[in-house]
């Protein structure tokens, strides 16, 4: 029998695996210290000493990408976690109970949703100050509405199903029905939206850092590196190119994985 390969899943796994490996190795070992400057290596090109060259302070770009992806991954994971957690709670309650609670929460949701997520994050950052954790909170809040909507629509679909009636009949309470009987049924939709949300978070973090209000120096992040590289884009294109490629790989890997899961 000829097996049909799920190329999305395979390629996605390879790319994501590669990036995760890079990040994991980066936790324990980087070729150079990502924050040590060396005036001798300023703008060094690609060589065996510095595989991807050096930046304007003579810091090794490969090491900085390894550290920077770590930060980006942390921010993206944290953002998606906050967004999913509160999104699921809001979506579950509004979808399951409906009525006035639904109206109030969903209108608030609409207001938050109407702002572009970067703009909203800007507002929160100006309130909270900038930094890694502030970015996570700001983006997380901006991501809640999209998850809430998805979960709500799934709950609306499931709440009148026979098996939910059956659970109610067995004497299960509302919370038990919501989170033990219905929530697992939303998994397929939730997982792919988590993947998409993760990509958006990576891009949003890169965007914020690019604007200089995200992760603060000396912390490395992919967006921060891009923004630092823009003044040297013609003299030292590698400086801008490699962090950019890293962002592309991270996002591409996860969106392929998401697509792959959907097809499984």
């Amino acid at each position, binding site marked *: 029998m000829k097996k049909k390969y799920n190329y999305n899943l395979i390629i996605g796994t390879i790319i994501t695996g590669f990036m995760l490996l890079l990040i994991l190795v980066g936790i324990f070992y980087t070729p150079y210290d990502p924050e040590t400057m060396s005036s001798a290596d300023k703008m060094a090109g690609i060589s065996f000493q510095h595989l991807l060259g050096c930046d304007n302070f003579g810091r090794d770009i490969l090491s900085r990408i390894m550290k920077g992806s770590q930060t980006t991954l942390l921010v993206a994971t944290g953002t998606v976690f906050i967004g999913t957690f509160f999104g699921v709670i809001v979506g579950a309650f509004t979808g399951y109970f409906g*009525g006035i609670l639904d109206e109030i929460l969903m209108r608030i949701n609409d207001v938050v949703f109407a702002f572009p997520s970067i703009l909203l994050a800007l507002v929160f950052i100006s309130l909270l100050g900038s930094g890694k954790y502030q970015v996570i909170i700001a983006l997380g809040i901006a991501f809640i509405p999209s998850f809430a909507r998805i979960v709500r629509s799934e709950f609306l679909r499931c709440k009148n*199903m*026979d*098996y939910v*009636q*059956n*659970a*109610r*009949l*067995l*004497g*299960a*309470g509302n919370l*038990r029905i919501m989170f033990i*009987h219905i929530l*697992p*049924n939303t*998994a397929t939709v939730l997982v792919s939206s988590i993947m998409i949300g993760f990509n958006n978070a990576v891009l949003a973090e890169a965007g914020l850092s690019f604007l200089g209000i995200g992760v603060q120096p000396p912390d490395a992040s992919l967006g921060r590196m891009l923004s630092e590289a823009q003044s040297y884009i013609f003299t030292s294109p590698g400086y801008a190119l490699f962090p950019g490629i890293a962002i592309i790989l991270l996002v591409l890997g996860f969106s392929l994985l998401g697509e792959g899961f959907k097809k499984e």
Partner: protein
Amino acid sequence: MLKVEDLSIEFYDNTIAETVVFDFNMEVKEGDIIGLVGESGSGKTMTALAIAGLLRRHGTKKKGHIYFEDVDLLTCTRSELRKYQGKDISMVFQEPMTSLNPVKKIGWQVEESLRLHTKLSKEERYEKAIRILRDVDLENPEEIYRKYPHQLSGGMRQRVMIAAAMICEPKLLIADEPTTALDVTIQAQIVKLLIRFNKENHTAILFISHDLSLVKQLCHHVIVMQGGNIVEQGEAKELFKHPKEEYTKQLIAAIPKCEKPEK
């Protein structure tokens, strides 16, 4: 045990109130099998849902009383109602294909009411679940315990539903057209199963159907409904032999008969 007095159900979905059940009266004693028959839309399912406590609280107006062991299920609090649901009153639905949660294993679903109403350990629950799965004539209960609903056939799922409903040994089982979606041979097996539970555990059964030939085999007492009203009720044998109302006669005439074709 169960006493329904002057039950009326009204819906306010549209601007005009619609009454779907008028002054319904019924009494179920331990070990009774009562048949509730009537055409589609005659209010039999609504009555059953009201007894099971599944009618929405908004948009419906219920009058009358449903006494279950002297507690009025219509006016008691939701938490009080939940103590009875699944433990003393349980229900089997018409559609076995959608009544099981597609992402949970059979064993988990059969055990659910034990988890809600008893404090048995995991091993005791497993034992009980296996025993009840064997009781409903499923082969290899250990294997079925670990399967997902989509791996079972319709008849098997309906047995699983009955097992899940019977695991707490309820006093009243409401079977809402449990055999409609199944083919005839499976129907007969399910009916036999219900009779066995009735004999062994003295479970009272409220059997809702529009299939009179099944009701004739199974029930002691029959209530005929039409348009939300009780048209006629009485002992099954008597009712089938000497139907009084025109509607009952028509229903009985609709049963296909096995007779030699006349030449």
